[in-house]
């Protein structure tokens, strides 16, 4: 039998929830170049770009990451009808963009930059291409269950964001995690120590749990991250690690 290199496991330091300058609350300095530079300085091996209800900057960060040697996955932080934030992370940009198109179909309103912040579309050279006019901070018309199903149909990972947080965390909004919601895992914010997450938040129960920075400012990139043991920095491998399958796992 030929050696299967895909089963050589190593540790990946992953921060799977980083905003760019496209999020209204994301700092102007969160350009594709700066995000990649800062992530490399923090010795991260894998990041995901998850702006609010959009992934229009993900391609630029992916291209800059490729140039500098950092793996980047495209994602969105979607706001459901219940006003719960949920991450959708994809293996390739086409699926992320398909998700974005669907999300846009359920998103109404126009941004008011003076009130909510500027929404900058940027290329990999950190040049401003324009502003996104949509009300990206708003809630979509889609329920949580529909968002999870759509994410999975596009081969994405569905993670309930910052479940420990009062603002838009699933526990605060819905009282408890709906048992029939087929999420791949939950994310706790930097305020929770990952190794103690199940003690801090018993309500997580047996759901796979990771942590990420939810950075809106450069200085916050990597402030929380998860070390995953897996064969490659892909969505499929993260899924295996979350489920603890084929020796992949969440290390810390």
């Amino acid at each position, binding site marked *: 039998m030929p050696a299967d290199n895909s089963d050589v496991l190593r540790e990946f330091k992953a921060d799977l929830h980083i905003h760019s300058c496209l999020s209204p609350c994301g700092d102007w300095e969160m350009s594709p170049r700066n995000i990649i530079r800062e992530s490399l300085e923090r010795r991260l091996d894998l990041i995901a770009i998850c702006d609010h209800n959009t992934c229009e900057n993900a391609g630029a960060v992916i291209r800059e990451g490729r140039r500098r040697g950092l793996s980047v996955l495209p994602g969105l932080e979607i706001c459901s*009808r*219940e*006003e719960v934030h949920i991450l959708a992370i994809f293996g390739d940009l086409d699926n992320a963009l398909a998700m974005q198109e669907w999300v846009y179909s359920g998103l109404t309103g126009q941004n008011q930059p003076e009130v909510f912040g500027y929404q900058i579309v940027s290329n990999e050279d950190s040049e401003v291409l324009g502003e996104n006019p949509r009300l990206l901070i708003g809630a979509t018309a889609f*329920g*949580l*269950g529909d968002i999870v199903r759509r994410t999975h149909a596009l081969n994405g990972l569905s993670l309930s964001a910052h479940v420990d947080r009062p603002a838009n965390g699933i*526990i*605060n*909004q*819905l*009282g*408890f995690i*709906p048992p*029939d919601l087929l999420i791949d895992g939950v994310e706790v914010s930097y305020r929770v120590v990952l190794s103690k997450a199940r003690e801090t938040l018993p309500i997580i129960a047996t759901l796979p749990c990771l942590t990420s920075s939810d950075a809106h400012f450069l200085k916050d990139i990597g402030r929380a991250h998860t070390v995953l043991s897996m064969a490659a920095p892909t969505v499929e491998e993260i899924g295996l690690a979350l489920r603890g399958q084929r020796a992949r796992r969440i290390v810390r």
Partner: protein
Amino acid sequence: MKVREFVEGFNLKPIAGTQGLDREVKGGYCGDLLSDVMAKAPIGCIWLTVQGHLNIVAVAVLREMAAIVITGGREPDEETVQKADQEGLPVLTSPHSAFELAGRLYALGVGAAPTP
């Protein structure tokens, strides 16, 4: 007062759980954060909310509520309707805001019942 009387008096639309329309209303509560409602809604109350997720049924059962009113012209999720029917929990809808309905309920004497 019974749930049925509010349905008629406020022109609420019964969506599910009509077998429970003769339940007695013992208070009222407004809230869209289910964690808050779980902790604070008075037992036996009528609850005004914009949330239509399935979890509202569990919260209502937990607080032994008389009924849920989904306000502002919103509709409950399909699974919510099914579960509320199973539980015999009235789910009613109204185009009016929670503010407006709560004001009218209060004027009729539905006050805040003490939480046991």
